[in-house]
């Protein structure tokens, strides 16, 4: 009997140890279905828009300045990354003194040193450098175009000298990914080979890639920020452009986390126990207006269009998945301020304003697309907007085209298509330049910049000039707030919606906090 008991005890201890060993070895995997049609490229600056930045850029790589994605209550702002601090040279307002983080290693084992930043600048700017890459140059040029040169000042110090003073410059640094000089040099500057064995300093290391199918990353156990060492072992990123397929893949247990489920699939996902996470998003579904050629050059017409919209009705169309857009940035943005006017639904006031400038009915043409990056549900939304505008005294024509054609209308500016009064290209509002300045600054008139309709206001221009020279964050914030308030009061756009970018998550996935940002931090996610 005693022998039997001993045997049983031994068996149970052995089994227990075996099970414990198995549990210790079990790999936790987070599988994400992206909306992209392919794996974003892995050579530094990713493609596939900000989804590429979100999943490949900020996971494999770091930027000198990172985004704080740890909370979802207010809009995300920048924080130290590979640079621990930055300040403008007191003697030269075009020279940024930057302290680099010590003890950071590339995934390939090399040390991160100041010369890496100089080398990274050469690869996106110096045409005759052996590691220059024209595609990477094109991808980041609008962020780095103001850099004149980079100087090494010491073991952990650099200076970045800009061509023009730019107090918002640290935001631009948050988009520029640092790649390993060691690895690319070892591969004789062959970017194709590098794409298959990339090396960054990010919280995940590259594991494998099957083009069009999946990218697998594993956690970087020795990431320099211990708080952001991933709480799962492996991250699998799967391109899945079709929304119905993404929902089906989540429901059938093939993936754990999906991007952008369509509003009509959300009730089904919820009934299956999935969590739907949303947050106000720096993404503006609006119309940029033509301030030169058509009726929108009158402030009264712009205001009338904004008063004509019944945004709660548009929200109902999207099953509630939007924030009503009365201003350029969502109210949770630090520089939203308190505009003196709110364009709540008032068709009578809209009609009155139109009559005051003898534009009743007021003929307008809006260029829209059938689909496209971040365009939400463009056809039904635009049809509803048209019916609301027309009910208030407009005579709206929708000029429907495909996404690339609309971009081709948007890029050259109003001069090429003077008959168009507004374009419906949704915009990312990630930083103050993207959110405000590029839409209203005279120096940003298209085709040079994003001010498609050539909005021009000397007071606004003067304020922006001051912002660029305001190196004190508090002073700058006050001016940015004022700028936003001026834009709203001047009805600089026809605002409709702020996206909330829903994501659906399986019940076994815990710990994700959706930041108010285009970028998200997957590292805290625990896969049970």
């Amino acid at each position, binding site marked *: 009997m005693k022998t039997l008991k001993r045997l049983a005890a031994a068996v149970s201890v052995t089994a227990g140890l075996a099970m414990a060993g198995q549990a210790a070895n079990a790999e936790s995997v987070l599988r994400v279905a992206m909306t992209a*049609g392919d794996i974003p490229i892995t050579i530094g600056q990713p*493609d596939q828009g900000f989804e590429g930045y979100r999943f490949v850029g900020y996971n494999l790589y770091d930027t000198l300045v990172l985004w704080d994605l740890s909370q979802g209550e207010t809009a995300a702002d920048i924080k130290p990354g590979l640079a621990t601090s930055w300040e403008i040279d007191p003697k030269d307002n075009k020279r940024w003194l930057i302290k680099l983080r010590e003890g950071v290693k590339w995934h390939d084992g090399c040390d991160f040193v100041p010369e890496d930043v100089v080398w990274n600048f050469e690869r996106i700017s110096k045409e005759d450098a052996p590691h220059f890459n024209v*595609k990477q140059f094109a991808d980041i*040029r609008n962020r780095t175009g103001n850099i004149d040169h980079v100087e090494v000042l010491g073991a952990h110090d650099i200076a970045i000298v800009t061509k023009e003073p730019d107090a918002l410059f640290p935001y631009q640094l948050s988009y520029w990914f640092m790649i390993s000089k060691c690895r690319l040099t070892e591969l004789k500057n062959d970017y194709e080979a590098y794409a298959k064995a990339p090396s960054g300093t990010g919280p995940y290391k590259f594991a494998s890639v099957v*083009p*069009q199918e999946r990218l697998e990353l594993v956690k970087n156990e020795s990431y320099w920020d211990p708080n952001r060492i991933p709480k799962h072992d492996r991250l699998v990123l*799967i391109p899945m452009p079709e929304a119905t397929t993404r929902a089906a893949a989540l429901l059938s247990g093939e993936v754990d986390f999906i991007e952008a489920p369509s509003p009509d699939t959300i009730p089904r996902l919820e009934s299956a126990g999935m969590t739907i996470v949303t947050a106000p998003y720096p993404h503006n579904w609006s119309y940029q207006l033509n301030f030169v050629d058509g009726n929108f050059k009158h402030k009264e017409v712009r205001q009338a269009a904004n008063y004509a919209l019944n945004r709660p009705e548009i929200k109902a169309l999207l099953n509630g998945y939007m924030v009503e857009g009365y201003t350029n940035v969502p109210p949770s943005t630090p520089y939203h301020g308190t505009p003196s006017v709110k364009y709540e639904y008032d068709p009578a006031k809209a009609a009155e304003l139109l009559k005051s400038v003898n534009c009743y009915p007021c003929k307008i043409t809006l260029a829209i697309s059938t689909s496209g990056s971040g365009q939400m549900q463009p056809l039904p939304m635009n049809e509803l907007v048209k019916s609301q505008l027309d009910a208030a005294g407009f005579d709206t024509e929708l000029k429907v085209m495909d996404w690339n054609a609309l971009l081709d209308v948007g*890029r050259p500016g109003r001069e090429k298509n003077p008959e168009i009064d507004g374009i419906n290209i949704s915009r990312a509002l990630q930083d103050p330049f993207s959110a405000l300045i590029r839409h209203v600054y005279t120096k940003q008139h298209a085709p040079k910049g994003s001010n498609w309709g050539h909005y021009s206001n000397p007071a606004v221009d003067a304020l922006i000039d001051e912002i660029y020279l305001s190196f004190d964050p508090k002073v700058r914030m006050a001016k940015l707030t004022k700028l936003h308030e001026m834009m709203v009061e001047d009805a600089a756009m026809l605002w409709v919606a702020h996206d909330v970018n829903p994501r659906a998550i399986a019940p076994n996935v815990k710990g994700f906090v959706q930041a108010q940002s285009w970028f998200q931090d997957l590292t805290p996610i625990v896969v049970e």
Partner: protein
Amino acid sequence: MTAYIIRRLLYAVPIALGVSIVCFALVYIAPGDPLQTLLPEDASAETIAMVRKAYGFDKPIPVQYLIWLGKVVTGDFGMSIATGRPVLGEIVKALGNTVLLAAGAVLIAFTLAFILGTIAGYRVGTATDRAVTGFAVIGVSVPNYWLGIVLIIIFAVELNVLPATGMGPRGSDTFNLFEWNHFRYLLMPMVTLSLIPIGIIARTTRSAVAEVLNQDFVETLRAKGLMEWEILLHVLKNALPQVLAVMGLQFGYLMGGSILVETIFTWPGSGFLLNKAILTRDLPVLQGTILVLAIIFVATNLVIDLLQTAVDPRLKRG
């Protein structure tokens, strides 16, 4: 026959050349700048000019075409603008995956449709004929992307017996057709893709068989006392050229026309590649893929033409 084959091969050359001009020009006729998705929206004129030059878009279109064609005939399809990878490698890999899918669909479609069409052709006007014709009409009418979604909902979401997306389990870089764990990924897209060809081929086979059965020689064969299966062989031999022509076209359509099905099932084939290239306006991939698919279409028709002639030498024409 050899002279005929050579002549048909020579005919294919100008067709392929014409196809290359059309597919090169198509992407320029389409609205939008070819570098639209590559360049940031607020790219300066200097940046645009530099990138345009780097990608050869600064040259006149006919010159671009000649340079492109010169490289293509040596197997250099250029580099993908989006991924930086060689286009030929992308196309070859994607085509391999599509061939796998299309071959499976063709096998299902040809077998099933040929049997159903033959039965219906023998039973014109009966309930069997009406059932087959009805099935064929449904096959042709039902959009295959809709069927794909329905299959996913039933077999992946509700029953959870088949995977909804992808091509093989995680961690496996090669597809093993003979392993159930891999093969199950192929099943739903293959069945979805086979629906339209089943409808079309079944209808063609039915009318071809019915038409042959009405010809006098069948009566003669019966009068000679041949067994019914021997008569069937004669009927099929005579109906085959017409059916083969449709089959060839269907195979060509399956190779290039599976964009929606591949996108729904995220099957990394040529349709998926094409869809991605259209969305990202990746010109080299778009041009290369369209050209290769068009040449496959031309080649398939050539093979079918030769097969038809082999089956029925009367079709050999000058």
